[in-house]
């Protein structure tokens, strides 16, 4: 099913014309309204009229998450606060969040691409949508909510947590669509089994899962355990939230809504553009956003693009499932985590950074985050209570900084593996990209 046949199936030539028209407006806007972009353009010897066609896009400067951090909170906004109607945020690389704002137009655009997303997964009016994405600063909850309402489906704004209650609602309300992170889908299946509920016997038939990477094997497991068709949804709050790309019924790559988000693949080290089919870093330029238009935003996600027309009829290029990251960002339970955030917290303890390791595992189908910290003479004491208090304090500080719980475990000195003198910071035992 296709929500916006005109835009989702237009010829590639018409699409490129539309993209070019929109890009010119967007470039002129950021040049005029956002001092950061004017400076970045000038540094490259460009003015707003400098690019003559879509092919000139690689001449424009990149935007990175560091630029968002350096201009925290609203320095990259292209509209005054009076025109903003919504603010969302995700975790930044250090203590400060990445803040994203929306005008009424942006919210409408978001609802529209989310309506496309859900329709592509097979959701229609009459469906009962169980939305277990977190409602709040995280874009997952409200993104799916607005998309489902736009379609005219019945939405249950469940948000996260209270898993047993979620299962009762799934069963009793006759939910047909499940929206959450893939790991939470497996958690629901596990808890349902403990409760003696077979989710395959419920009315669930469609799942849209996103906010974290998941493997093809995980898809098979989810589909088998819950008895639904599982679609991958891609997005990031900097660009809009969920609603950037989605798998259609063919489940063969994620269609990017290219009339709103212009994709490129670049070589992560050099930033050089790569041709279709080559894996590299996904770079996105917003074409229609008002409050936070971004030019050539480096997503840090590794994928490749396929422009071939899909069996579903969409002409929108497809991206492969994300196969990795260019940086050390981790996604745990849908939340972005940077080791630098954890270091900021650890530094507060004794003023010196202990050797530490981040261990992510999947326990009871849920991502489990542990921070192992090497004990040192400065920290060690004969007093159990003080050591346990240290673990507790760190845990609560980390919860504050990361937005999810992490278990702190003290380990012996020199027990964390070092390669070339440097500790290996992350051990990820999940098979997220497999």
């Amino acid at each position, binding site marked *: 099913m296709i929500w916006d046949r005109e835009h989702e199936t237009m010829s590639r030539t018409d699409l490129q014309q539309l993209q070019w028209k929109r890009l010119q407006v967007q470039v002129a806007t950021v040049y005029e309204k956002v001092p950061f972009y004017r400076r970045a353009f000038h540094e490259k010897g460009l003015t707003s009229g400098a690019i003559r066609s879509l092919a000139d896009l690689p001449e424009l400067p990149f935007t990175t998450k560091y630029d968002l951090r350096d201009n925290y909170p609203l320095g990259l906004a292209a509209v005054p606060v009076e025109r903003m109607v919504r603010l969302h945020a995700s975790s930044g690389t250090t203590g400060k969040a990445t803040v994203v704002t929306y005008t009424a137009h942006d919210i409408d655009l978001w609802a529209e691409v989310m309506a496309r997303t859900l329709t592509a997964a097979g959701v229609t009016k009459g469906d009962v949508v169980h939305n277990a994405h977190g409602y709040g600063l995280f874009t997952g909850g409200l993104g799916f909510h607005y998309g489902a309402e736009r379609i005219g489906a019945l939405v249950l704004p469940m948000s996260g947590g209270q898993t047993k209650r979620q299962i009762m609602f799934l069963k009793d309300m006759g939910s047909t669509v499940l929206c959450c992170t893939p790991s939470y889908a497996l958690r629901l299946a596990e808890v349902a089994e403990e409760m003696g509920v077979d989710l395959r016997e419920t009315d669930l038939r469609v799942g849209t899962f996103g906010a974290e990477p998941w493997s093809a094997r995980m898809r098979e497991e989810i589909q088998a355990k819950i008895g639904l068709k599982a679609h991958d949804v891609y997005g990031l709050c900097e660009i809009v939230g969920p609603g950037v790309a989605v798998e259609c019924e063919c489940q063969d790559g994620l269609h990017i809504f290219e009339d709103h988000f212009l994709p490129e693949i670049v070589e992560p080290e050099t930033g050089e553009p790569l041709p279709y089919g080559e894996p590299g870093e996904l770079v996105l330029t917003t074409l229609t956003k008002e409050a936070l238009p971004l030019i050539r935003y480096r997503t840090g996600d590794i994928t490749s693009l396929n422009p071939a027309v899909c069996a579903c009829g969409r002409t929108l290029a497809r991206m492969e499932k994300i196969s990795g990251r260019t940086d050390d960002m981790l996604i745990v339970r849908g939340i972005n985590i940077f080791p630098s955030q954890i270091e900021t917290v650890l530094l507060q303890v004794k003023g010196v950074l202990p050797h530490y390791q981040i261990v992510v595992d999947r326990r009871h189908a849920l991502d489990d985050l542990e921070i192992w910290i090497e004990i040192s*003479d400065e920290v*060690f*004491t*004969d007093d*159990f209570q003080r*050591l346990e208090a240290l673990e507790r304090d760190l845990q609560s500080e980390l919860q504050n900084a990361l937005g999810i719980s992490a278990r702190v475990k*003290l*380990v*012996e000195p020199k027990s964390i593996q070092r390669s070339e003198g440097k500790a290996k910071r992350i051990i990820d035992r999940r098979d997220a990209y497999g």
Partner: protein
Amino acid sequence: MKETQISVFLENRPGRLLHLLEAFADGKVNLRALSVADTADFGIARVIVDDVEAAVQAIRQAGLTAATTEVLRAEIPNAPGGLAEAVIRPLARAGVNVEYTYAYNKGGSENAVAVLKVDDMEKAQQVLGEE
């Protein structure tokens, strides 16, 4: 009497205590007393040795971390109720809290020795000195 106790951080998994004991053996450190207490993740091994300096060196060489603590040493008469009457009751009466204790046998003596970590060392010494 005061005594210096060495505490060592050990992860709560097989082989870690052995690692510590091997370090003592290699460093020719003689153990007089050992106590191990644990939480879910880690344990603390507490030892009384003849030569504190050599022991700390052996611990560091084994890549472990050590802390020294002043504890109380009290002789226990070798009779039923000995520990209670000679040591614990006087401390309790004086309001001194015992955080942990363990005991060992002194070479060539009938009496055992209790090692006590108390919240008020000075008071404890006074109390036991009076008894």
